[in-house]
């Protein structure tokens, strides 16, 4: 995973709430067995509408999504995160994220930033007024800024550290494998095992 310290880019004002993962990438696009190539499926249904915001030339280079409340609800497909990343997005800002989507983002290195809905509205207005304006999302100082707007955001220290260092969770856990082994030694015998198969 690449480390994330700070990112500056233009933003996509996605004025929709409840952007579920079926909208981010419909199921028919989930059939690849790699982590790349999902950009074609990103917002596939909406992109077939010429009026959709991502189809507007002024937003075509955006790298930051600014969306309505409850972004990433529904299916646990991490393909939604990969689709956003494959397309070139580095950050998603919303006033609330679905738990699984947020977890997936943090594992894959896509930064999710929670701001108050009023702040999201201010960002939308600022960007719609001048789509070329550069938004900076700084994880070091936990701040989003564009022009005269500047908003601090919260993120837990552990996740921030992992993202800034670009650390692999599995490696971190394997450092404590002795504790896993100890735990397993006390696992009750009545708990089921899948092997051997019983019918």
């Amino acid at each position, binding site marked *: 995973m690449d480390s994330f310290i700070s990112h500056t880019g233009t933003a996509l004002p996605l004025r929709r709430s409840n952007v579920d993962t079926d909208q981010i990438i*419909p199921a028919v696009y989930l059939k690849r067995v790699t982590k790349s190539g999902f950009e074609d499926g990103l917002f596939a*249904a909406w992109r077939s509408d010429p009026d959709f915001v991502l189809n507007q030339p002024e937003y075509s280079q955006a790298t930051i999504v600014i969306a309505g409340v409850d972004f990433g609800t529904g299916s646990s497909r991490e393909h939604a995160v990969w689709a956003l990343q494959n397309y070139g997005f580095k950050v998603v800002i919303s006033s609330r994220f679905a738990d699984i989507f947020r977890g997936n983002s943090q594992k894959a290195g896509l930064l999710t930033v929670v701001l108050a809905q009023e702040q999201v509205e201010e960002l939308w207005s600022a960007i719609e007024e001048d789509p070329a304006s550069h938004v900076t999302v700084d994880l070091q100082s936990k701040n989003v800024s564009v022009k005269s707007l500047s908003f601090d955001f919260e993120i837990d220290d552990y996740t921030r550290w992992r993202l800034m260092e670009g650390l692999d969770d*599995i490696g971190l*856990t394997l450092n404590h494998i002795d*504790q*896993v082994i100890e735990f397993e030694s006390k696992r009750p015998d009545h708990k*089921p095992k899948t092997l051997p198969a019983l019918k």
Partner: protein
Amino acid sequence: MPQLIYGQWDGRFRWLRLAPTKNVGRLLGKPGFEPICLGPLLRYSFCPYSDNAISESEMQQRALEIGSEGIFMGKTLAEKIWADHLVRSVSGEPDLIYVDLHLLHEVTSPQAFDGLRLSNRTIRRPDLTIATEDHNTPTLNIDKPIADPVSRLQVDTLRANCKEFGVRLHSLGDAEQGIVHVVGPQLGLTQPGMTIVCGDSHTSTHGAFGSLAFGIGTSEVEHVLATQTLPLVRPKTMAINVDGILPKGVTAKDVILAIIAKIGTGGGQGFVLEYRGSAIKALSMEGRMTICNMSIEAGARAGLIAPDQTTFDYLQSKPHAPTGSQWEEARAYWETLVSDPDSEFDEEIFLNAEELAPFVTWGTNPAQGVPLNSHVPIPSEISDPEERAAAARALTYMGLEAGIPLKSIKVDTIFLGSCTNGRIEDLRAAAEVLEGKKISGDVRMLVVPGSARVRLQAESEGLDQIFLAAGAEWRNAGCSMCLGMNPDQLAVGERSASTSNRNFEGRQGKGGRTHLVSPLVAAATAIRGTLSSPADL
């Protein structure tokens, strides 16, 4: 005197809270003890003692220092299961939680297996891992190779990965093949007090047995494969109390749709939901699975129900249920899996079962639902601007006029199936409505059992003959039209009454329009061709 309430999780974590009626106190730490402000707005604070655990007597002393009496508090069911699976807990880091059962399917696992190979890792516990093919699998001609080459590649990839890593797999054609959340319970691998994960958000289904079960992404799938654990932030707990007797014709599906409409798609975010109350206790295991299944539609990663005699009876005959003395041992443990009477939930909501009615969604998220007897909402009458805009957009997508009676809506397709309502009891309920009747001439009805075993059971009861005689299609097991990854899809503009779990735009096929309903409403709607309940027949 303010009451300082505290509890013990595992000897390393203690937690504190002032009783809600009291509000004063500032607890200043001894060395290694973080100062905690206890004010009226702060319900409680976690206080990590990873390296500085203090004894119960010390805790009582601390209570006295702030002029309080210390009260040891019980745990909720979710907190008990969490504590029982805590491998590692350190201040400032997520808890490391042990996973008892890992379920795999073809869509969210290939990149995880690839990750293992790339880093020269292997599966830590293949004996706690099981796979099935469900999302892509066709429901017709299952004896032939999968026609869609991309779907076939994904299924073939799962087969190759399971072979390489020694994972038990139930493939198309096998009696245990089916939707992963139907397969776990029918094999008896889903048991109370377990932690269960799968790269699928409807893993919450397994919570019906009093287990902590939730969906994960592919990075987490790889993490569980490699370590059999997950780093997780402890969720909050919410009690959803449903008391009273459900009126005739009102099912588990209607209960959960009503709950989601009440708390919204984000209402359960960050929580584990515990469904409680006499109406929940009265449900069968199938009904409880329907309820827990859709916890994610309320934003909660997991939902659970305390195990009881209904749970034990269901489990006893299942292949992987413990036997003999192990059954007794297990059962003694399972009986402790209730929220203690003195435990407290972070949130609590109440529903009166007697007031519930058959429920149906009209919009494009599962919270956009109303009783079937009512009307499509009028967006201009919705006060919240965000919800108003969402409603207007949903009605445009759904091709619905505001204010019309729901029962006037004509449908094209009925889908009976999915991990929400594809179990034997669901098929029986629909068959009872359809018996001796014909479905409307202009609708098609797909009946897709949740697993090959459910299909066999239904056939042994003659349910397939009832469906076929009524004019419905009797298909093979899988996720099918719930998400339309296989050929079972809605066409553009086509409208369904579906017993599945998501009415998102395009979920059942690009441009398709979905109304979520119970199996009873699905069957009645099939007969009348418009959204209906059995009472309308």
